[in-house]
Every structure is written in C-alpha cells, then in structure tokens.
C-alpha cells in the first residue's frame, strides 16, 4: 500500500511537497519501528512547529502512549502533532473517541493510519453520526470502502462538502464525462468546484481533445482522452499548456466566455420558467 501511495501519479502531480514528506516517513516506517519517544524527537518536532514548545514532557508522553496503544507508531504520532498541534493537548479519552469514530468507517487499520497521518486535521471530526452517513453516501456511489478511502486520500475536503454538491459533480463525471469509478477515485476531481470541472471538460471537448466514450464501449478499452487526474489535478497553466496545448490567455478567455455562456443560459431558462408560470 505504501508503495502504491508513493507511486500514485496523482500525488506526484499535485502534492510534490507532501510526497517528499510521505516518502521521508515511509522510509522511516520501513526501518525498524521506533516505539519510544525520545527527547530528540520532541526537539525536532518543536523545530518544525514552535507552538508545541509549551507542552510538558508528561503531556507528550501521555499523547504518545495513547497513539501507540492504538497502533500508530512514533513517526506517525510526530507527523500528526506537528501538523495538528491541538491534538497534543487533548485528553486520551478524546483522542481515543475520535479514533473510534474513524474506525467505525471500516477502512482497515493500516489504511486508516495512513489517512490520519496524511491529514491529521481529520482527528478534529467529532460528530460520528454525520461522518458515518457521509461515508455511507460516498460508498453508495463508489461501491467499496476502499474506494471511499482513496477518495478521501485524494480530496479530504469532501467531508466539508454537502451531499448535493458532491452528487452534482459525481453525476457530471460519471454520466457526462463517462469516467468509470476506478479512474474517478484516483483523482482529486471531487475537490474541485463544479463550475471549474465543467469548464475544463467543456474546453477539452471544444478543442476536440475529449471524446465521450460510446455507451456500450468496454470500460477496459483504452481511450485517447486524458485521464481525469490530468484534467483536474493540474494548475491552470499546466492544464492549458501541457494538457490542452494552448496558451494560457486562450484558456483564460475561454473561462470568461464559458462563465458568461452558462449565465446567459440559466437566465434564459429562468425567464422561460417565469413565462410558463404566468401562462398557467
């Protein structure tokens, strides 16, 4: 899994900085596990995140032990507290309860640890009911727990989006772009705003570079279309120049024109609706 994580091209494209970090920890993880918190570790962590310096050694030890008891090694613990210092202050009960909330999602221990180490902010989740229903909704669309985990690994902000917005994007990606779930979960497409996603897709369609697959086509059949992660996980400049092979001003002009076009269409539709209401 680690290997997969490391060589996931999506991460390579968008989160190079994070990759470096993950790799660093991965190397550490591959080495014999360090199960003891030493003064050196604390000092290193304070260097990275100075706000941690206010806590006493007891606090450090208590939090470390709690994490260790729940299977998170010292390196993971250090990564979590440096990225989310508030965790250190919490009582063991609270930490355990938030871990339990996540455990209920049934991603499996290893995967869950990877997720929490990558995004320590997820430990702030406190409403278990809401989380479970959200994960349940995602599972209903991408079919397995593992796919939900992959989605969260790529776009953690899904938790903050409403079901309606996610649904809108999922419908667009699956029905209009005709992209299959395995490809979808490999990209951070869902963390992008719907308007931008549609704009990028429309631009590719108008350039003639994106042809929707035939309805009956075999999903394994290779296409000439760009992969979803290439479309969504790129900066505007990279998208314009490397994926579309146009200049940035052209893409910017298109964005502007497309937004106007959509606005005109919605206005027209609204007017028509008003008109039909009046008739009734």
């Amino acid at each position, binding site marked *: 899994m680690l290997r997969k994580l490391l060589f996931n091209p999506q991460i390579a494209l968008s989160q190079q900085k994070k990759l470096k970090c993950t790799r660093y920890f991965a190397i550490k993880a591959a080495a014999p596990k360090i199960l003891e918190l030493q003064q050196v570790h604390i000092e290193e962590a304070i260097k990275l995140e100075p706000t941690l310096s206010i806590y006493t050694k007891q606090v450090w030890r208590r939090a470390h032990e709690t994490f260790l008891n729940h299977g998170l090694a010292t390196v993971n613990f250090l990564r979590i507290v440096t990225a989310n210092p508030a965790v250190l202050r919490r009582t063991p009960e609270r930490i355990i309860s938030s871990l339990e909330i996540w455990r209920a999602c049934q991603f499996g221990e290893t995967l869950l640890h990877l997720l929490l180490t990558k995004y320590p902010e997820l430990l702030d989740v406190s409403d278990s009911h809401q989380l479970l229903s959200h994960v349940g909704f995602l599972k209903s669309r991408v079919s397995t727990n593992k796919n939900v985990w992959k989605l969260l690994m790529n776009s953690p902000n899904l938790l903050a989006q409403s079901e309606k917005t996610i649904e809108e994007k999922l419908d667009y990606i699956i029905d209009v772009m005709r992209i299959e779930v395995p490809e979808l979960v490999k990209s951070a497409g869902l963390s992008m705003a719907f308007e931008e996603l549609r704009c990028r897709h429309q*631009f590719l369609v*108008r*350039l*003639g*570079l994106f042809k929707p697959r*035939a*309805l*009956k086509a075999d999903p394994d059949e290779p296409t000439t279309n760009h992969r979803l992660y290439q479309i969504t996980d790129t900066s505007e400049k990279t998208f314009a120049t490397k994926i579309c*092979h*146009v200049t940035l*001003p*052209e*893409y*910017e*002009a*298109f964005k*502007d*024109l*497309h937004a*106007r*076009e959509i606005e005109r269409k919605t206005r027209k539709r609204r007017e028509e609706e008003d008109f039909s209401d009046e008739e009734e």
Partner: protein
Amino acid sequence: MLILRNICWLQRRWKSGGKKRWNVLQNKKNNCDRALESFDDFYGSVYGGRWKNMRAALLTRHKYIAMVNNFGDTEQTCSMLETDGAINMKSLINLAQERLQGTDPALKGQGQNRYEIDDKLDALLRKQQEREVASIYPSAGEGGAAVQMPQQLKYDNVEEKEESQTESPDFKQSLTKALEEDVKLDEHRLVDPQFGTGGLYEYMPAHSIKGMEDWVAESEHYKYYQTSADFPLRIEPETSFHFPEHLALYTYEMGNCSDFKAPKKCLTGVSSHFLMDGASTLPPLFLQVQPGERVLDACASPGGKSLLLLQTLHLDQLVCNDIQESRLNRLRRLMQEFLFDYKQRSAARHLIFSQSDARNLDEYEQYDKILVDVPCTTDRHVVMEQDNNIFKPSRIKERLRIPELQAGILTNCLRLLRPGGSLVYSTCSLSPIQNDGVVHMALQKVFVEHGITATIKDLSRHTELFSDVFKFEHPKGLKYGQMVIPYLPANFGPMYFSKITRNV
C-alpha cells in the same frame, strides 16, 4: 426441477422494463455534429495542430464590435462606450501606424510559399476519394484487383468526370451539368418492345445502387481547388490605407470578453450603435470608398457591411442587392432603424435596393467599388445553430456546389466593375476552396470568357495595423487574400477577404 423452473419463469422483457434503450440515450447526430465532423476532417488536415484552437473558438460565442451610428447622438454614444472601457479603433490604428513607421516595412511576399497549402489539399482529395470508394466497396482497400470495380460499374458520374478531366484538363464541367446529364436515359438499357412488358420482369439490369441514386461524392468539392494558373496574374502591394474620418468603431482589447450595452434610441429616433462581428468590418474598410463613388453590395443582407459603408459618409450611391425578398426586407428594416433620412435617401436614389441573383446583374462597367460578401458555409453559424444549416443532409448538393456559385458571383461582379475599379471578395469560411480556390476560378473564368484581367492587391502590410485587435492567418498560408482566424482572446471571424482591382 424442470417443472419448478417453468413455474417461476419470468419474462425477460418484464425484468428489464425500466431500462432505456441505448439508442435513446445516445444523442442523434444533428446538423451541427455533421458540420463539425466535416470540419475536423477538412480543416484538421489544412491547418494541422492549429485547428483545435480555432475549433474551440468557433464553438464559443464570438466577440462584437460596436459601430457608432453617425445619424444619432454620436458624441453621447462614444462617451458611453468609452466609460465602459471600450477603445476607439481609429486611435489603435494610429498608434500602430506610428509604431510601424519606425520599422522597415519588410515585404512579406504573398504567394511565395504557396505550395504548402496546395500539397495539403491534394492529399486531402486523395484521402477523401479513397475513403468514399472504400465505404461503398468495403473490399476495395484489401485486394488490389477490387480497386478496379468502380470503373466497371460507373456508380455515378464521378469516374466519368475524372476521365473527361484527364482528356482535356482545361475543360471544366460544372457539377450541375454533370448531374443533369446523369438524368438522361441510357439507350443501351431500354428493353426492346417486341419482348413485351414481361421481359421487364425477367431481366432488369442494375444501373445504380439502390438508395444511392442521388449520391454525390464529398470529394467532388475538393476538386474546385485548382492550382494551374493559365491567366495573367499580378499581385502587388496595396499602396495606402486610410481609416474613414467619421467612422467610429469601438472594441475591447484582446483578452477582454465584456459585452457591450444594448443600443438605445437616440433623439433622432434611430438606434445609437450597431453590434457586429468585428471581422466583418474589415472588407468594407479595405474597400476604401472615396467620396462620390458608386458602390454595389452584391449580397447585402443582413446589412452590417452596407451600414458601415454608409457610416463613412463618403458614398454617393449605394446599391444593395440580395437574392431573396425576405432577406431584402430584413435589410430595409435595418436601414430604417439606423438612418433617420432613410425615406429621402431612397427617394433621391442614393440608396437603392435590388432583388436579383448577383450572377444575373447586368449593369456592366458601372460601379467604382463592389463588396462581394458571398454566401458560404458560414463556419461559425453551422457549428452552433441547427436552423438554416447548410450541412442538412438534403442540402448536400447545394453545399458541394457552393464554390461554383461563389465563383459565378465573383466573375459577374468583376464584369460589373468599371476598369480601374476594385472589389473586395469576402467569405466567413476557413475553407481554402471557398477562399483562394474561388478567387482563382473566377479570375480564370473572367479571363477566358470575357478577356478581363485583374490585379490582386496584397493587403498584408495594412492588416498589420489591425494586429492588436484581430488575429490574422500568416500571409504565407494564403495565396490571394488575408484571413482573420478565430482565436479565443479575440474571438472574431473567420473572415477571408481579397481585394481585386480590374485592370484598365
């Protein structure tokens, strides 16, 4: 066991009742799709990698230019447009003129490297023919012997025409004529009356493929583009360019896609400004109408270009011609909307409307300037609008014959010109056949049939003045004219224009 299954057997159809059929879900191919497919194929091989940029631009809304109505509250309109951030084109051109004066006018030899495009079209014609043969005779591509089949079967007039072309390359058979000839009865296949009608049932030789009776090969269209020049041709650079003093055109800078405000009613009862595709302003501008000249707009409707000619305030007499009454009525309405003295003008015969096919106009050598904005495939329209779309399957013959119509109009307009007068030929198509191909055909025809020679004016130096506003095709790719190509930050065009002066 067997019985049990029979009892529980459910009908398949009932089980899958909720699902829609694939062919319902799949969009039906409409005229725009057809147009786009044809363009992908044709322009993709002509423009190569640049086609996709043009494609995206064509499929996106075009940009407008605002032409201020000189017969309304001109100053108020100008200041209104300026507050919205629009720029007066005249000042842009003055700036460009100053900028260019410093640099050495490097004469770009138009038509120097003209062979590039010829090769591309040649290859395209060959490819299209092969594909058409292959689509009818699927085995033709595989076996070498099968390729001979079309000649034996004579599936249409296509092969016949090819032969006639190889025999006498100068003789150009028109597609209309060829189609008419095809209707003639084949004497060999008439059944002798002595055998009675019963004979008909016994033997009926196949003379055409069922369902393909009125089939026209798409490759016919590409044959209009000829490269052999057997007429005197002179290309010289245009000497000067003056932006009309009174004309006010407003545009936003490149990259700014804002919209203009809708026109308002002025004190004189006319509209304040007219919004038109920016590229349409260039043909009338390059016509360079001088005071007191008699001008013809051969295919005037919807009237934007005619209106621009009137806004220069130079005209003595403008004749607006169009083929259909309905189009002419549209033109009349537009003129009424923008000219407060419309009635006096038409009464004094300063503004004349005529309804006629531009190929049949016969006031020879009467006009100083002619604007020939011919009907064409209107590339932007056909990929966006279903209505009045020339890519409708039933209009295929009309579409393939467009170059013939255009050349006919241009030929006749060259005859209408006074010796020394000039015309601007323009289309809103990217197709080299409808552009350079038609100019070539018309020049050849007018020389062979009427002995008229003409000079092509090279406008490439003057188009540079507009390069801040428009994106032009590099003059290397074109033989006789200039072209504005669709480009997203400046989404004007496509507009091809060529200035031709009749030799004295």
